[in-house]
């Protein structure tokens, strides 16, 4: 279990002065959990990962791993391993030597190392590649070596820093499944950093959405998607309509959010409509039709209607409908 308690990190640079990368962040990551830190670049997610790994020290607050305060513990004294964004495979060593590196440092016996390296190579499906050099492997294969190297010493936590960002789309999808499988099979806590919300939704048990050094919301992917607690989360995860409360006649509500797929579009004279507008663009994408609708104050709404076959045309007046349970009122 990783407990992050009121952790702040302030960087001092010569040209910009001080930068607060993390502000009073608290969260708990459970054992055997696939936990994701999700946010745009510069939100502090990588800094938090590096703090857990021991590559940075917190300015304030404390981090506990399995109940032990890790303040002052260098990376090589933490039972935590990292998969780096650039993989950081040792270019002067073979794949086997790369995977054995951590085990040698932990002074495993030669025989145990041999067995473990073989086991890891088969776990990441790279049997027969042991004697090659890192440069001779493709990006996806290097990624799997990095995983094998980090998992070999049986860490209690595996940290993954944007591990899939260097792969092309098809490989990335494959590796998502692969990572999920590895996490299940090894039972090790995975902490993943990503800016890709689809990746986060697909793999995580729980997600922490971060922005500007703060954790905005923590929860299961479904909860965060269905029940965002602020505009940033609603907008960052999937697509969201953000409608000013005043426009719906609710003066005390700041913003109402609805997912485009929960919105339906009716003819301009339909009764019991939420709000009226004008279609500005229609995009037919096969199963669904996307409507871009302009409301009377200029706010834009998007609707994703299943099987609609483009009933309405651009410039046509329409009404917009959604069920009560599809909307969320947001304070900020």
């Amino acid at each position, binding site marked *: 279990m990783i407990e992050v308690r009121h952790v702040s990190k302030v960087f001092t640079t010569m040209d910009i002065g001080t930068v607060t990368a993390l502000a009073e962040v608290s969260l708990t990551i459970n054992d055997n959990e696939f936990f994701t830190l999700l946010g745009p670049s510069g939100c502090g997610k990588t800094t938090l990962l590096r703090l857990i790994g021991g590559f940075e020290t917190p300015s304030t607050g404390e981090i506990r791993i399995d109940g032990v305060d890790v303040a002052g513990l260098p990376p090589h004294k933490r039972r935590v391993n990292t998969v*780096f964004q650039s993989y950081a*495979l040792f270019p002067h060593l073979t794949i086997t030597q790369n995977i054995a590196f951590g085990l040698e440092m932990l002074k495993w016996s030669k025989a145990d190392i041999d067995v473990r390296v073989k086991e890891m190579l088969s776990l990441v499906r790279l049997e027969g590649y042991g004697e090659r050099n890192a440069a001779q492997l493709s990006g996806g294969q290097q990624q799997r070596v990095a995983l094998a190297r980090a998992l070999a010493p049986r860490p209690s936590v595996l940290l993954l820093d944007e591990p899939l960002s260097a792969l092309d789309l098809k490989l990335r999808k494959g590796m998502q499944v692969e990572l999920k499988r590895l996490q299940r099979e090894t039972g090790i806590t995975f902490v993943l950093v990503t800016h890709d919300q689809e990746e986060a939704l697909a793999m995580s048990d729980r997600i922490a959405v971060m922005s500007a050094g703060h954790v905005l919301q923590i929860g299961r992917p479904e909860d965060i998607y269905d029940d965002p607690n602020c505009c940033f989360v609603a907008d960052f995860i999937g697509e969201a309509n953000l409608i000013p409360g005043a426009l719906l006649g609710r003066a005390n509500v700041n913003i109402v959010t609805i997912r485009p797929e929960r919105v339906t579009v009716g003819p301009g004279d339909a009764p019991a409509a939420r709000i009226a507008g004008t279609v500005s663009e229609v995009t037919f994408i096969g199963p669904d039709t996307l409507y871009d609708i302009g409301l009377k104050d200029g706010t834009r709404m998007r609707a994703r209607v299943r099987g609609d076959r483009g009933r309405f045309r651009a410039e046509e007046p329409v009404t917009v409908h959604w069920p009560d349970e599809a909307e969320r009122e947001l304070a900020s």
Partner: protein
Amino acid sequence: MNMKRTLFLILPAVLFISVFMLIPLMIALVYSFMTSDSYGGVTGPATFDAYIQLLYQQDFDGSLIFSTDYLFIILRSVVLAVATTVLCLAIGLPVAWHIVCQSASRRKFLLFLVTMPFWINTLIRTYCWVLILRDQGLINMTLRNLGAIVDPLPLLYNDGSILLGLVYTFVPFMVLPIYSTLERVDTRLIEAAHDLYAGRWQVFRRVIWPLAKPGVVAGAILIFAPALGSFLAPDLLGGGKKLLIGSLIQMQFTSSRNWAFGSALAVLVTATVILTLIVSSRRNKVGEVRI
């Protein structure tokens, strides 16, 4: 077409090396098999006399006596060149690593400092050490004024002062190639090693050292070869009392006027260096090094 262009482009370099290196080397090789005449030149016929002189001294009656005098000079030169290389490595590797770890603007400044000695003539720089080390020099005068010593310390005109001068001259040649090798190393590798339970010493031994090695080999070659034949530091800082092979060669071509023997010594030094190069390139793939 491509082949022609390649030839055209390497022609100046090939010409330069042939005219100013290969031809003089050939001349030295030929001279080393000739005999010095009484006018300071060389004459035929071809003999091994110059090489025999390396190991044997001619007695008054003309018989040859085995002598280790020159061998000893050669050995001392090799030992000094090796010591210079090792000391330059001991100083140069930490310096290069330190520079690599700095910010980009600081790196530029520090590299500038490393190359600054090249702006001043080597002779003048070496002579400055005489002013610092001699009996009335900076160190001895300061220590005497402080009352730490009565008689001046013998800092100048010994092996130590020669070594100091050589190391001082050659340190940049170790720093620069190691820097250029380490500069291309991903710093995440260091973090990855730390992450995989390696302490500071293990990170150095298992990651930094192997990755710096091509630069170390390049630096060692750049230093060992000229250090072996150098005569400036030995002459000025060694006082010319204890001969080294560089000074010995220089002497044969000037005061001793024995060009044949000088050439034989020069061929020997060149052969030693080439042999070292071949052995080290076999072992370390020098071809991969970019300086």
